[in-house]
């Protein structure tokens, strides 16, 4: 399986090159990849059907618990077959459909990466590996939604999808990591038996919430559903593939996969069921006012995704059975209908249902394909959709407490889905022929094969469900439930409540369809205010983020140097004072108050010249004061036995004077620029710094320092350093590398001065 994934990525990488070479026939080349992959996986079918499970594991980052572990069991095979089958249809279709795009080669690169990543998600036996593929599907979805990148709406939708699914993905990552912390492993097969340990763990609710956030965003569950209709900005093959058949089912796959391991609790089951049911109903209602073929399909997809999630939440054996049948049915008919929508768009130049009609003569094959898929979608016998819906109703009826509400919701939702089907699958073909932007005729073969095949499969599965579907679904279901099932799938259950409900659904759907055109305008007007819709929240959030970001940035990075300095100093003082306060009880000072006359005079001079410098508005006076200050400090160094330091201080003070003198009269006179309130504030800050530093010095000198270094230097300076001037010996020998750094600083400073003065700007970056 690692090889299969690698092959997938490799072939994707080759796509742009091959596309350039075999432009015309590329669809046929591309289709080989999913076909081949599907074939390889399908070759394991006999063993899987017999209850076998294939695992392969190659260490990747074993120390972090991340391995290239893959599992092929019923569940993953089911999903993998959906991915490759729909993939094959879509690839073939896209080969023709994408020809008008100049960078179609890149399209195949992205969609190839997507397909492989999606296979990775469903084949992963390691949570983190799954996450890796999960994120890759988000990224490739982003690139595909934004494929028409010159349109702003495409870019926005791509970003929206990425942020919503990516954000959920991050929650999921956290959930995975918490789960890994609880179980000590990320291998899914390793925590197959840990359900009790996990559910009893205090972190369990956290895990559930985080993982479900990932699943719900990816599978566009309410209230994260809004990105999916917007994702219809993508080229239609993408919508058919990612946003209907496969990627949006990744979240559902995750719930299914984890159901046995962490499910079974009220928290898990109820959350999943209620969210699914809400999504099913609300999104179906939202379809009512749509006119765009793809948007209509998107809302019906959302409703189905909700149904699937709800089924997992119900979690009964029957519900799981319904789940699988419905899953397969939906992938087949929805993939078909999207491709049909693509064909219509391609051939007529519009996707607006209100302007399409009567195309059955011009596009007979498409009409048949659409009809087949539509019947399946409406749940009409003998298509697999019928079985699906029957089983769904059946399983809902079993639910104890919520059953009544759920069944009503399901019937209503499905009625709206029926409405969508009538709009998308029939209306464009029947009635009178209407004018369209392009003159329509039947699509080329390559665009017909894919949808035709999918629609036909729907019929086939409907006719022979027990033979074709049951064995695999048994194994799939046993991956979700902890028991081995033996499933019987029948097309005809006889006349019962479920069948009645099916009829009611169709009838209601017809009624809604009939009423729709009259109510359409009014329905559009009653659109909810943005503040009440999740997509409004998203927009508000995004705008708020920008506003917050700008506000924060102009507040924090306000450009006033002194504000920056104040913040830094205040932080330092605050933290240091806090630290000092904590140690306050141990602090003692024993300063030496003895002062000679000349020391007092020196201190007086230093302080007065400091004051002059702070208050003077004359530049030269300031420099004189600075000179006095420097010389006084030099004298302090003399008094305390540091002649070398004194020498250096004097020399540098004098050079400073020369520097200032050379620079200064080019500068303007000092102005009193600050407001007096600012001056007071600054004085307070400055004073606190001063007091703080005084205290530090007093504390630090309150005890004897026993440093072996001082004595060592005194001892070793002459015999080993060959010098009597210990300070100089330290500078050029003991700590010569300090001096090396020091002269480097000087050299660079000189280079800097030279460059500043000589190199004049010429308007470069």
């Amino acid at each position, binding site marked *: 399986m690692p090889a299969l994934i690698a092959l997938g990525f490799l072939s994707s990488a080759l796509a742009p090159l091959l596309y350039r070479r075999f432009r015309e026939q590329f669809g046929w080349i591309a289709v080989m990849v999913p076909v081949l992959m599907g074939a390889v996986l399908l070759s394991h079918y006999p063993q899987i059907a017999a209850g076998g499970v294939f695992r392969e594991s190659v260490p990747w980052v074993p120390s972090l618990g991340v391995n290239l572990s893959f599992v092929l069991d019923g569940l993953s095979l089911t999903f993998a077959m959906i991915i490759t089958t729909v993939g094959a249809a879509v690839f073939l279709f896209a080969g023709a459909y994408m020809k008008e795009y100049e960078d179609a080669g890149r399209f195949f690169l992205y969609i190839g990466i997507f397909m492989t990543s999606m296979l990775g998600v469903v084949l992963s036996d390691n949570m983190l590996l799954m996450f890796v593929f999960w994120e890759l599907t988000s990224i490739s979805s982003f690139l595909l939604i934004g494929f028409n990148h010159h349109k702003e709406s495409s870019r926005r939708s791509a970003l929206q999808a990425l942020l919503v699914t990516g954000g959920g993905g991050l929650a999921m990552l956290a959930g995975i990591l918490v789960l890994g912390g609880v179980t000590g492993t990320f291998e899914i097969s390793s925590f197959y038996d840990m359900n009790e340990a996990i559910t009893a763990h205090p972190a369990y609710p956290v895990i559930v919430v985080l993982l479900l956030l990932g699943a719900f965003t990816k599978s566009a569950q309410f209230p994260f559903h809004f990105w999916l209709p917007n994702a219809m900005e993508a080229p239609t093959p993408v919508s058919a593939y990612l946003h209907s058949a496969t990627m949006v089912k990744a979240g559902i796959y995750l719930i299914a996969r984890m159901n046995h391991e962490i499910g079974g609790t009220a928290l898990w089951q109820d959350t999943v069921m209620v969210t699914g049911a809400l999504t099913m109903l609300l999104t179906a209602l939202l379809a009512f006012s749509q006119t765009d073929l793809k948007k209509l399909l998107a809302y019906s997809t959302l409703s189905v995704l909700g149904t699937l999630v709800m089924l997992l939440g119900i979690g009964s054996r029957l519900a799981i059975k319904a789940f699988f049948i419905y899953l397969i049915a939906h992938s087949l008919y929805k993939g078909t209908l999207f491709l049909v929508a693509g064909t219509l768009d391609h051939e007529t130049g519009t996707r607006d249902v209100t302007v399409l009609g009567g195309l059955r003569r011009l596009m007979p094959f498409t009409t048949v394909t659409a009809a087949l898929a539509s019947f399946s979608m409406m749940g009409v016998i003998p298509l697999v959709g019928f079985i699906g819906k029957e089983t769904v109703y059946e399983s809902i009826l079993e639910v104890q407490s919520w059953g009544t509400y759920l069944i009503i919701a399901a019937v209503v939702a499905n009625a709206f889905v029926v409405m969508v089907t009538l709009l998308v699958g029939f209306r464009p073909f029947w009635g009178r022929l209407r004018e369209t932007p392009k003159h329509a005729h039947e699509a080329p073969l390559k665009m017909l094969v894919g949808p035709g095949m999918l629609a036909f499969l729907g019929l086939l599965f409907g006719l022979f469900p027990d033979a074709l579907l049951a064995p695999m679904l048994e194994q799939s279901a046993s991956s979700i439930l902890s028991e081995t099932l033996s499933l019987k799938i029948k097309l005809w259950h006889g006349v019962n409540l479920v069948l009645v409900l099916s009829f009611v659904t169709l009838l209601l759907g017809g009624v809604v369809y009939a009423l729709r055109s009259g109510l359409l305008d009014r329905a559009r007007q009653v659109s909810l205010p943005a503040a009440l819709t999740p997509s409004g929240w998203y927009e508000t959030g995004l705008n708020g983020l920008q506003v917050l970001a700008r506000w924060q940035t102009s507040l924090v990075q306000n450009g006033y140097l002194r504000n920056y300095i104040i913040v830094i100093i205040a932080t330092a003082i605050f933290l240091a004072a806090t630290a000092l306060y904590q140690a306050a009880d141990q602090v003692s000072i024993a300063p030496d108050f003895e002062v000679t006359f*000349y020391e007092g*005079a020196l201190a007086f001079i230093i302080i007065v010249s400091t004051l002059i410098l702070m208050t003077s508005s004359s530049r030269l*006076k300031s420099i004189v004061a600075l000179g006095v200050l420097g010389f006084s400090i030099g004298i302090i160094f*003399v008094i305390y036995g540091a002649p070398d330091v004194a020498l250096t201080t004097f020399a540098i*003070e*004098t050079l400073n004077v*020369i520097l200032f003198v050379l620079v200064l009269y080019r500068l303007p006179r000092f102005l009193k620029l600050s407001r007096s309130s600012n001056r007071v504030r600054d004085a307070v800050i400055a004073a606190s710094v001063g007091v703080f530093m005084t205290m530090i010095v007093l504390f630090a000198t309150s005890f004897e320092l026993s440093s072996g270094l001082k004595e060592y230097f005194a001892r070793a300076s002459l015999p080993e350093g060959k010098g009597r001037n210990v300070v100089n010996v330290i500078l050029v020998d003991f700590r010569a590398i300090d001096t090396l750094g020091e002269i480097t600083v000087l050299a660079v400073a000189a280079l800097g001065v030279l460059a500043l003065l000589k190199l004049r700007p010429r308007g470069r970056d």
Partner: protein
Amino acid sequence: MSYMEWAVQLSVIFIGLSILVIFLRLVIGPSIEDRIVALDLLSANAIAFIAVYSIQKNTTTFLDVGIIVALLAFLGTVAFAFYLGRRGKQ
């Protein structure tokens, strides 16, 4: 206390007083030239102080500092004058 010690003590006080007085001139000015002259004089006082201090502390190493002070004080004064000349020209 020997005569020498006494003389040294008194000398230090003289210098200290003189430094304070000169500093007063430096503070009050009024012209910048006054301040520069005062600064120059201060460094001369520093040299004297260093000489006396080296006797007081019985170390000779400080005298080198005195040379440097003499030298640099002159340079500083010249630099200020340079500035004043420039300023005059403007």
